[in-house]
């Protein structure tokens, strides 16, 4: 196994955050009660996603600086990983919303709209890539769009919900998750969870990246 220290650490941290997250006591807050445990699952996944999107934008910048296929592949794979991570992100959020807000989804909340839009924006990124056929042009176009998409993601996902009325914790005047950590007990599980999910997202990225490179090499040799 390559870099087993890294993978073992990620697995241990994930197991710790999941088991301790469901088992250790949490502060009792009105309305939230036990659902506050979602902080250990939902938030770290989104941290991983944002980090992946940032890495994708970084790869796009590196590609624009010197056009090597490697950075285009990095950018593309990181975007794929981010899209994959959006699934558990939304599922955990949706389950939490069902228990706290009484509904699986709402179209009135700006954060949720921002999430839907960001997924559409990155979906359009993949469509743009499939529309361009020549490799250099595909890479150039998608790098430019990726940077634009990332800046818009930051704007619509992180900035806009904080300004508008939102029920989502941390936005629109609601206390952010940091205020819940009344006894630092939650922090003890939360920070390792964030590290674990960021680590996991890079692991997934690496697997996908190696697979795509091998596929490319295979295609290159056989055509």
């Amino acid at each position, binding site marked *: 196994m390559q870099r087993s220290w890294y993978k073992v650490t990620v697995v241990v941290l994930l197991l710790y955050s999941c088991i301790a997250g469901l088992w250790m006591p949490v502060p009792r807050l009105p309305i939230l009660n036990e659902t506050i445990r979602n902080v250990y699952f939902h938030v770290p996944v989104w941290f991983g996603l944002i980090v992946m999107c940032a890495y994708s934008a970084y790869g796009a910048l590196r590609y624009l600086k010197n056009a090597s296929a490697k950075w285009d592949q990095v950018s593309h794979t990181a975007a794929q990983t981010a899209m994959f991570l959006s699934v558990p992100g939304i599922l955990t959020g949706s389950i939490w919303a069902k228990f706290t807000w009484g509904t699986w989804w709402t179209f009135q909340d700006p954060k949720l709209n*921002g999430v839907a839009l960001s997924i559409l*924006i990155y979906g359009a990124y993949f*469509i743009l890539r499939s529309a361009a056929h020549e490799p250099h042009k595909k890479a*150039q176009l998608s790098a430019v769009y990726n940077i634009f998409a990332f800046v*818009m993601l930051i704007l619509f996902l992180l900035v806009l919900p904080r300004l*508008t009325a939102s029920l989502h914790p941390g936005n629109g005047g609601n206390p952010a998750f940091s205020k819940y950590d009344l006894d630092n007990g939650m922090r003890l599980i939360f920070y390792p969870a964030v590290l674990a999910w960021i680590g996991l997202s890079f692991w997934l990225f690496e697997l996908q990246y190696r697979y795509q490179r091998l596929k490319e090499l295979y295609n290159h040799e056989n055509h």
Partner: protein
Amino acid sequence: MRVNTSVPTSVMICCNMRNLSHILYRDFRQEWRQSAIWLSVVLFMVGSVYITSLCFNAKMDKPSWNAVFWIMLLFTSLSLSVRSLNASSQGYALYQFLLFNPIDFIIARWLFQVILALVLNLLTVLVYGWFMGFSVQRPALFLSITVLNTLAAASVLVFTNALTSYVSAGFSLLSILSIPLLIPVYSISVKLGKQAMDGIENAAFRWDLMGILSAVFLISFGLLILLFPYLWRSR
């Protein structure tokens, strides 16, 4: 005129006003002579307003008036952008590449699109107001929201236009790329427009949302200037 042979290494490429005004003048002259793009979108807009007034019997409650207005602006802006997409032929594209600086070219293109979109949208306000009534308590604020929305939307559309002009499947791709970026712009404009219609005073008005619209405009324009030279040299 400088021939574009070097790769831009910094974004402090001086913008040659003479070149820029030349490109702009040429674009407007072509538009005036052929009248294919802008006037057809104006026709589309007038047609939509007319159908709307037929459907609603020219009577609408305030929220609906506001919402339909902004939706109409969304689709006319998209139309304008899509129609400008294939305006230039292959030969003219090569001519542009050889003669012009990418910064001059893209600023001229941006100015051209923004001016067309501004005139179109202000005309929409007039026509829509004439057919459907104009019961806005703070008209100046409403107009400034329209102008800011036009700037933001047009900048986003010029950016996606620049991207899709390099790809053959242009038209549908432009819509797919731009609509997720335009949805928040228009939903913010709907909120602000409603406030302007209700005559909210300055203290209670959502200036931070105006700030978001300006941010979208500045980010789109800034990224356009920064990133377009990279697209230019991949011709």
